[in-house]
Every structure is written in structure tokens, then in C-alpha cells.
């Protein structure tokens, strides 16, 4: 079986802090990690490899530094790594990103493509299903378990309350939830191989059957009109003299203002 896992290198948003004076993000010194849902997708691929035998390729689109995420994936046990990197890819929204990845996937043999459900920097959950659509593949998203049965997969597809057990024939695309598993650590031999024996293949726009206008910022149907920070955290208002009913009303009012209820 041939599996391709699409991963994204993201800033560890748990480590992102706001500058208390300017209210802007402090990105300096924030470590980059493999997006958690993607990493669980990779673990699922490696588990299938352990059980049934498989060739696992990791694919990412990103700046040259994304090499680090691919090396980590190789050290965990992936067999091959591909980095899609080109200035022409920059500024892509989910549509253009998924098209670029799909064009790269057309050049790779696969029975199964795994992506994470969503990335922690954007939280859109769109790239997986959109890749599937570009490749005309069936997809199942929100997977919490993947079992292989001959040429099919049985997927536990999660909903808010409960799940569907779904059988889907390969080739197909699955989007993985981080709740699915605990990804393995890199081992020493794996790290050695990742840097000495294995290579990261670089793909640029020239290698893809695609027009420059279809991708990157230009090929993106959506544009960012403006962005702003919500500002730094300070102590809010303290209410000292409310009786319980007034206090309860005040809390409800604030929760409504913030669209929490």
C-alpha cells in the first residue's frame, strides 16, 4: 500500500504570546511544530505500515524551513519526503493551496492520502476535502480510527454526538483527528537516517502542470481585506455590591455580548 501524508509546519500557537503594549503577536522564538492533526495522521499511516506494510511519503507545502518538519516525519519512520516550495505558492488561500497539493499528488502514486482535519494556525478544515475534490477522490473527514480491510478502509467518522462507521474503497482521502492516537517519538536511528540516508525532494512550480495565475495569492478566490489583534489581556471589571440575582444577570449579559451564549 502506498500512503501519502500531507503535513503542515505551524507555529506552536500555545506558545504564541501577545505583546502587552502593541497587542501584536510575538512570533520570535516561537517554536515550529508539525500540526497536531497532521502528526496523528502520520502516526496512523505508520501504524498501517507496521501492521500491513506500506510505503509512507510525507508531503508539505511551505517555505524552505519546512524541511525541518519533514526531517522529523522521516525520523518517525516515513520513507520519503517531498517539499513543495516556490515563491509562486505564497499567499495561497485554502483553494489555491489544495490545488497546488493536488497537482503534486498527481505525480505521486498513492492508495491513500491522509491529511489532518485542520491546522492550528488557521483552523479551517478545508484543505483536505478540497484536495479530494480536485483529485476527484472520495474522502472521509474527522477520522478517529482507521482500519484496513483488503482494498477498503473502515473509518470511525466523528460527529458532535456520536459517529458513523464508514467503509470506503481506496484510493481515497482521510482527514485525521489528533484524538486518534499519540504520535510516536523520533528514535535515534531514525534521526540519523533522516539526515544522513534519506533526502527531502524539492518540487517547485516548474515541476507541476500548473499555471502561475492559478495558484498563490493570485489564484486564491478569497483575499484578506484586513487583520487586527483583539488586544492584550488586562483585568476586567470587578463587581462588589451585587446581590446574587444581579450578579447572575450581569454574567449572562457579558456572555451574550461576547457571543458565548
Amino acid at each position, binding site marked *: 500500500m502506498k500512503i501519502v501524508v500531507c503535513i503542515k509546519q505551524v507555529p506552536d500557537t500555545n506558545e504564541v504570546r501577545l505583546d502587552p503594549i502593541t497587542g501584536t503577536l510575538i512570533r520570535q522564538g516561537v517554536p515550529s511544530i508539525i500540526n497536531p492533526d497532521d502528526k496523528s495522521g502520520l502516526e496512523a499511516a505508520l501504524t498501517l505500515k507496521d501492521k500491513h506494510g506500506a510505503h509512507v511519503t510525507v508531503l508539505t507545502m511551505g517555505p524552505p524551513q519546512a524541511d525541518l518538519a519533514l526531517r522529523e516525519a522521516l525520523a518517525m519512520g516515513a520513507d520519503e519526503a517531498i517539499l513543495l516550495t516556490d515563491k509562486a505558492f505564497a499567499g495561497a488561500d485554502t*483553494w489555491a493551496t489544495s490545488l497546488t497539493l493536488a497537482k503534486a499528488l498527481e505525480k505521486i502514486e498513492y492508495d491513500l492520502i491522509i491529511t489532518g482535519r485542520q491546522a492550528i494556525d488557521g483552523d*479551517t478544515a478545508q484543505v483536505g476535502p478540497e484536495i479530494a475534490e480536485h483529485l476527484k477522490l*472520495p474522502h472521509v473527514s474527522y477520522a478517529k480510527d482507521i482500519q484496513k480491510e483488503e482494498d477498503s478502509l473502515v473509518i470511525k467518522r466523528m460527529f458532535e454526538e456520536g*459517529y*458513523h462507521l464508514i467503509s470506503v474503497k481506496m484510493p481515497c482521502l482521510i482527514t485525521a483527528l489528533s484524538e486518534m492516537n499519540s504520535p510516536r517519538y523520533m528514535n535515534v536511528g531514525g534521526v540519523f537516517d533522516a539526515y544522513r540516508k534519506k533526502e527531502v525532494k524539492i518540487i517547485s512550480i516548474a515541476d507541476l502542470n500548473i499555471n502561475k495565475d492559478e495558484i498563490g495569492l493570485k489564484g486564491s478566490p478569497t483575499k484578506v*481585506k484586513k487583520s487586527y489583534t*483583539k488586544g492584550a489581556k488586562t*483585568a476586567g471589571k470587578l463587581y462588589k455590591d451585587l446581590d446574587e440575582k444581579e450578579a447572575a444577570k450581569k454574567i449572562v449579559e457579558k456572555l451574550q455580548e461576547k457571543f*458565548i451564549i
Partner: protein
Amino acid sequence: MKKEDYSGVFVFIEQKDQKIQNVSIELLGKAQELAKDLGQEVTAVLVGHNVEHVERLGHYGADNILYANQKDLNIFMTEPYTKVLAEVIDNKKPEIFLFGATAIGRDLAPKLAGRVFTGLTADCTSLEISAENRDFLMTRPAFGGNIMATIICPDHRPQMATVRPGVMKKSEIDTTRNIEIESIDVQINPEDKIYEILEVVNEKTEKMDIQEANVLISGGRGVGNPENFVKLNELAHELGGIVSSSRAAVDIGWMPKEVQVGQTGKTVRPNLYIACGISGAIQHLAGMEESEFIVAINKDETAPIFEVADVGIVGDLNKIIPALIDELRLAKEAKNQ
């Protein structure tokens, strides 16, 4: 594609077990506002089989109802639903199409956007029409909520967005609006069922991890005794969250270790954190100060927890919490009317 050919605000109506989901009713409320600003109509698009109370869509703001009522569409499957909606877009050419940001909407909408080649903005918290050029302004959080971005989709139609449940407000019910239902006839072939559902399991969420909860009601020593945690549970239930605790409450043995928030417990960042009877030792604050919105209730007005709280209430939590549960129920009833 000619932009001028596209008109109308469409809402995908989600149904589960033949019941229209609340998020879709909320979206109809927003769609009404948008349609008014554009001088257009609201169209509800329902996909399912023998769905109950379809007339409610009119009562809550739809000017038109499109209904694909087929046995094969009884339960959500990505491809048949995508096929139906792609045909709707093809025939009706909506200017805007809204979806709930649910486990269904977040699967269906990107598949559909991919098919009809348009942009999609996920998990929007605000939607408006630009007074200046009629652009559809879709605002959403990114970077774990640290940044807000306003997104536009200038050259593709429909402009698509998903919105989380509870973000938009239902409009007032008007039972005099009886809207005729137009049926959509889309042929669903066996090959459209690109996967097979072997089993459908309905369950209230498995025991949730406090790190995954959107709402945490956290209790400390000030709760007074383990029995009082029952009220906290009730409040958590009312807000769709779960109960966590401070180290003090764990050390006394009132709460299990796995729900402890703080440096020696777990770090949490829910949308809402209500700290009840927690003084706010540094080790506790380190585990929760990144929560989106913090409410603190404590008898001691000098408690450090108030320094990170968005709303601080000085008072007796064992009186305030029951009152709060009542107020929330009233607010919910008012919203559902």
C-alpha cells in the same frame, strides 16, 4: 462567470434524525439581515427525507424553501449532498451561501467550494455587507483567536462562509409566513454513494477531556464541600461544558486529579472559564489565563484570580451559581421563542 448573474442569500439547512438543527435557524436570522442590505431574498436549502416542521424555515426568515426530499438523502453523506448543492448553485446562482460550522458543514462546504471553484471562509464570527461596495465581509479568528481577519471573495460566486453554532441570533418567529416549498429533483445514483455507512452510533459525547472542552466551570476550596460541586455540574451542563478544579479541591479529595487545572495539572484555554471559589495561585493562573473569556466568583475581593478575570463578582458562589443557572435558562427560553 458573470457576477451580476448571482443573487440571493442561501442557507444550507442541516437536519439530523429528521430534525432541523438550531444552527441553521440562527443562520436564517443573519441571512435576513444580509438580504435586506442587498435588497435580495433568503433561500433555505434543505436536504433530507421526511424532515419535520419544514414550515419553520419560513417562520424564521426564509423567503424561499428548496427541499431535496429523498430517501437516499436521509442521512448525511458527503457526495450525494455535494451533488445536490452543486446543482442548486448551478441553477439558482446564489450570491451568498451560508453553512453551519459543524462536523457536517465543515465537510460539505469545502467539498462544494472545490467543485464550483469559489472561496470559502471558515468559522466566521461576523458577517456584513460593505456599505461602500457591497462586498461580503467575512470576519474570523485565527491563531487560536489571537488575530481577527476580515476576508472577502471579490471575483467568485457564490461567496461561501461557515458559522459556528450559537454565534448568530435567530430572528423573531413569525408563524404567519407560510412559504411554499419548491422541491429539488436531483438524481442520486448508486455511484454517487462513494462510501458506505456501516453503522450509525448516537451518543452524548464520551467523557470529555478538560483540555478539549469549550466551557469549563472550575471549582476550588471556596466551593465548600463536595456536594456543592453538583451545582457546578448543573451550570456546566447548561453551558455545554464540564467541571474542572483547582489543586486545592483535588488535594482535599473533592475532585479527581485528571480535571485539575494548573502547572501541576493541565493547561486549558477554553472559550469560557468560570472560576468558582478559586483564589488564583500563580500555579493555577499559569494553567488557565489564556482562556478566551474568564469569569471569577469569589468572596475575597483581593483574590488574585480577579486580576485575570474579564468579569469578577465578589460574593457567595453557592448563592450566585443557582441564580446564574436560572438566568441562563431564561435567556435560552427567550432565544428559542
